[in-house]
């Protein structure tokens, strides 16, 4: 290696190589139904015609049966927290200030939980089995987005026993 090359190699220890790509996501037929429901502040799921499981958001196929989904089902805005975590760590792109709670919410009548935020209470009050309801944004602000539900807030009802939600965790 020449002296000139050595000098260059010595100085170059890292290299920035920024990459930027643009994508256009396609929601597909089933998620599109759900997102249109969100714009009307309704929660739309679908029922598997084979095992009768109610999926929300609806998906293109039942993962248990591998068949296309059947009837649409509008779900209530109330549900039960099955599992949750308290986010204490800041990270890039974070929209909320920690600490806050992410939870799996099993809507009444649904068989799979919806993943969303929990608000309206101290993070330390959140627990498995806790009853919650959707807190919507104003009608004028409703979008084709899950963020039309701002977060879930406690209803104050008694907790559901774990035995009743265990299968859905």
């Amino acid at each position, binding site marked *: 290696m020449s002296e000139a090359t050595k000098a260059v190699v010595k100085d170059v220890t890292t*290299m920035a*190589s920024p990459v930027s*790509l643009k994508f*256009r996501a*396609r929601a597909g037929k089933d998620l599109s139904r759900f997102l249109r429901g969100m714009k009307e502040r309704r929660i739309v799921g679908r029922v598997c015609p084979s095992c009768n499981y109610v999926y929300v958001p609806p998906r*293109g*196929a039942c993962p248990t049966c591998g068949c296309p989904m059947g009837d649409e089902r509008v779900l209530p805005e109330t549900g039960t927290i099955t599992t949750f975590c308290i986010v204490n760590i800041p990270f890039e792109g974070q929209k909320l200030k920690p600490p806050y709670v992410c939870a799996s919410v099993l809507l009444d009548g649904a068989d799979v939980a919806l993943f969303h935020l929990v608000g309206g209470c101290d993070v330390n009050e959140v627990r498995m089995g806790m009853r919650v309801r959707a807190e919507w944004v104003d009608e004028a602000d409703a979008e084709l987005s899950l963020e039309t539900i701002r977060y879930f807030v406690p209803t104050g009802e008694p907790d559901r026993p774990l035995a009743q939600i265990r299968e859905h965790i």
Partner: protein
Amino acid sequence: MSTFNTSREEIAIVSFVELSPAEASQLDEIETIQTIVSRATDGAGIARDRIGFTVSGSCDMLVGRPFSWIMAMDGAGVSKPIEESHVEMDGAWALYEAWVRLQHGDIDAALIYCFGANAAEDLMQVLALQLDPYYLAPTGINAAEVAALQASAMLASGATERQFAEVAVRAGLAVSVEAALAEPYLHRPLRASDLPRFSDGAAAMVIARGDYARSVCARPAWIQSMAHIADGHSLGARDLSKSPSLEKAARLAGVGAKATQIVEVHAPFGPQEVIALEALKQAGLSADAKVNPSGGTRAAQSVMVAGLAAIGRAASAIHRGEASRTVGHASSGPALQHNLIAVLEERS
């Protein structure tokens, strides 16, 4: 012929389906997979419970979402749990894994599927991300420009633009050689008719062993052999005008051992088809083999699907009784770097 590349068990392609670009463009990944998997299994009279292994091929960079194939798996019906694998590659390599798995001899059939829902605004730029991140990717070169470098190397070693134009006509991308040659250059020496027309797509295939294969398919396309080889990654480290890996894979697979009626070549860019056919010829491919009678995959190229589609179409020709021996080729990586060959035969 290497014994590693020959089927030890009797294994055949018994079912193959592709989704049309028009249909694929309406569906998300799960809906896509649900549709093709049910057509390739239920639609072909193949019981799901006879499938002992499922393997998929796709690339997150096309969708722009990490682990997109995990979500998509819902469409294949995965609970109760199935034995499952994935390659971040064209479905042809998923087929290779399934073929190796079936040689264990303990399961009857394997399902392969792949999808190429393309959400990227500039696919040529996405494809360039497979270049090495230190020397090539930072230059900003895109996939079409890499292919243009390769075409230039071909011209420098004796190929002609007329050859490229003939390939474009065969792919249905130009009405005549003269019309192709009259097009302006897009990436010199490449013209629009040398470039793929990208589309959404998906494909599914079932391979099966021995008697089970015979029971579900009147004319199984027996996999005589399969082999895949890669050339060095760096574009500067190899002669871009040739494909030693393809020639070697074709020799390992025994392409020249018998007369072949049909060859389906997967060359994303037109001039690469010239390279691929030359390599296959060197490995003993019959001079009168029909090239891409299916029309090839370039006119509606779905990335991660086109390679399996080429092999699937070579199998379909046997299913339909149009040929008794066919060769399917799949490629991967920049400038035809990685090549896979499948030799398919009818057996009485």
